[in-house]
């Protein structure tokens, strides 16, 4: 973890239980809003002239909203999630919780932030302390959320049930249970603190297919029952389609397309989104070979212009070599695309 994380949590002088509701019973606060604006993240030591690791124009999370950040390695999606958690310090732009920039949160406000916004990390095997029993881990979350020690075991039992784990698992240690059970335990711990927003980083990677489905079902159920807001970082389009209303597609640190999930996946407007959609293998659907880059692709200046040009089947010089802006498309106001050729290309059928 980068030492950029200033510990924003300070104990109040009285150390008394705060006014916010205890973990499990707490309902999400309507006022919970996590907003990133004009976010720019560069990793320390990188060339300032080179493209940033992440450039995100705007992202807002609130209870009830579910947003997906889709992209492959190097897309910046995990960086975005970590910036929203305050683990990574942006080089420019802001991340605000309840209207206050994260680095300015102190005391009770900082605690409220940590309780309201919980991550589910990608590393399933490392996310739990190997020396701590699962029940103790969940109880730790409950206490961190302001719960009383005497209520701990009842809360643990309730949460285990909520995530579909047998109560006997409370005594077990992480290495004694399966990967799927570990992931559920991690979710239970996150829920114990009473969050309104869950930020999930590839929550199903490394798990068997049947297990993945169950975990997704669980997340969906929790989202509905608790009214949670979700940020799902994933390259798994199936998970995205299932859980998120809105999808943001990232490629090499840039937003290339964004809009309502179903529309975006059915009729992508950006060639990368189409390539992504096309690459996802599906049962009963004949194999779709990836499309080759266009013959002109090599001539396009991808440093100044479109970063996907070198792989794009529709790349054309010089238009694609110019800086590309996010433009609204399709008229309904929710879809934007970063592709100068998008209007003329029309809806790209990924299945062709």
């Amino acid at each position, binding site marked *: *973890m980068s*030492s950029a*994380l200033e*510990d924003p*949590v*300070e*104990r109040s002088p009285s150390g008394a239980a705060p006014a916010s509701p205890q973990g499990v019973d707490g309902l999400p606060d309507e006022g919970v809003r996590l907003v990133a604006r004009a976010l720019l993240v560069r990793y320390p030591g990188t060339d300032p002239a080179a493209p940033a690791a992440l450039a995100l124009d705007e992202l807002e999370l609130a209870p009830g909203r579910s947003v997906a950040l889709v992209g492959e390695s190097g897309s910046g999606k995990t960086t975005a999630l970590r910036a929203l*958690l305050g*683990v990574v310090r942006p080089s420019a732009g802001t991340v605000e919780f309840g209207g206050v920039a994260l680095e300015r949160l102190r005391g009770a406000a*900082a*605690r409220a932030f*940590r*309780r309201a916004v*919980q*991550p589910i*990390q990608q*590393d399933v095997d*490392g*996310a*739990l*302390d*190997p*020396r*701590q029993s699962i029940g103790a881990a969940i109880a*730790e*979350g409950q206490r*961190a*959320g302001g719960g009383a020690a005497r209520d701990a075991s009842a809360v643990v039992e309730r949460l285990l049930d909520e995530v*579909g*784990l*047998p109560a*006997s*698992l409370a005594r077990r240690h992480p*290495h*004694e*249970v*399966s*990967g*799927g*059970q*570990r*992931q*559920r335990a*991690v979710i239970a*711990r996150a829920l114990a*603190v009473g969050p309104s927003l869950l930020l999930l980083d590839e929550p199903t990677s*490394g*798990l*068997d297919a*049947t*297990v993945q489905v*169950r*975990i997704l079902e669980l997340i969906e159920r929790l989202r509905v029952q608790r009214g949670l807001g979700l940020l799902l970082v994933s390259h798994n389009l199936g998970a995205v389609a299932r859980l998120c209303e809105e999808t943001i597609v990232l490629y090499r640190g840039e937003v290339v397309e964004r809009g309502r999930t179903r529309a975006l996946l059915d009729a992508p407007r950006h060639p990368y989104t189409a390539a992504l959609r096309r690459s996802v293998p599906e049962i009963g659907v004949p194999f779709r070979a990836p499309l080759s880059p266009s013959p002109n692709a090599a001539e396009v200046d991808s440093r100044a212009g479109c970063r996907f040009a070198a792989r794009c089947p529709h790349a054309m010089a010089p238009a694609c070599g110019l800086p590309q802006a996010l433009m609204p498309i399709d008229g309904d106001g929710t879809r934007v695309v970063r592709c100068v050729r998008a209007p003329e290309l029309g809806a790209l059928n990924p299945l062709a």
Partner: protein
Amino acid sequence: MSGSGDAVDRAGGRGSSSTAPGGLGASGPGSALGRFIGYVVRRPGLAFGLAIVIVLAVGAVLAPVLAPFPGDAGNDTNLLAALQPPGGLHPLGTDLAGRDIWSRVLFGVRISVGVSVVVIVASLFVGVPVGLFAGAVGGKLDDLLMRIVDIFLAFPSLLLALAIAATLGPSMEHAAIAIVVSWWPWYARLMRGEAAAIRGRAYVEAALLLGIPRWRVALRHILPNAIGPIIVQASLDLGGVILTFAALSFLGLGAQDPTPEWGLMVEQGRTLTSTQPWVALYPGAAIMIAALAFTLLGEGLRERLDPKGLARP
């Protein structure tokens, strides 16, 4: 040639409580005690070390009862029986003051081993918090602390101990202090390394993101996971401290007469090795056996607790 999660990892929520391969221990049939005995028996070195340590423990506790001449470990002298060879009343002979060597060796266990334990514990008390703090916090504070530790580490430990004992005056307490001063930086460094490695783990970050204050995360998550190699090193060091303490006493900078400290006893028999060798031999053998036993015990612990071999050899 295995794939991603090809370790036994079955679907969760299917009702079956299947388990993944465990961490350290072999889970076989039989009781915990049975497994422990089986474990020890397969390792002759560990078995020997453990046996000797048990004998030493018994000796330390029961010294007043087992020693034929308990007073000889104190102020009693018996010049008429000076320098008796082993045999009869005195199984290991007598020293220059007529004191029974066997009794003195027996009482010496308390001193040598007792002081060593105290020294190790004290060194841990200083070194572990410093290392934990530096490792958990990182950054410039970490650098600063480690530079200070480096300064201490730069001194050859025995010389440092000598200097301190010489300055403060010879006594057991001063020798112990001297050893602690030269010993704690090793633990600090070792702890700092472990803590720094664990600081980056996902569960540490998760705890911080739950809102748990950093100090509590350090104590509850970093310390327990980091302490393994340090425990191993400490148990190995027990043997080393016994030797160092004996060395200081031998040089006159540690225990003083009539304390039955083994190193001191060796010194007292130093000039007599050709004519009355038993005076130095038996205390010397005791030093060697005790140091060996603890070292073997430590090695056995290392195999269990620190399989990566991070502790200093």
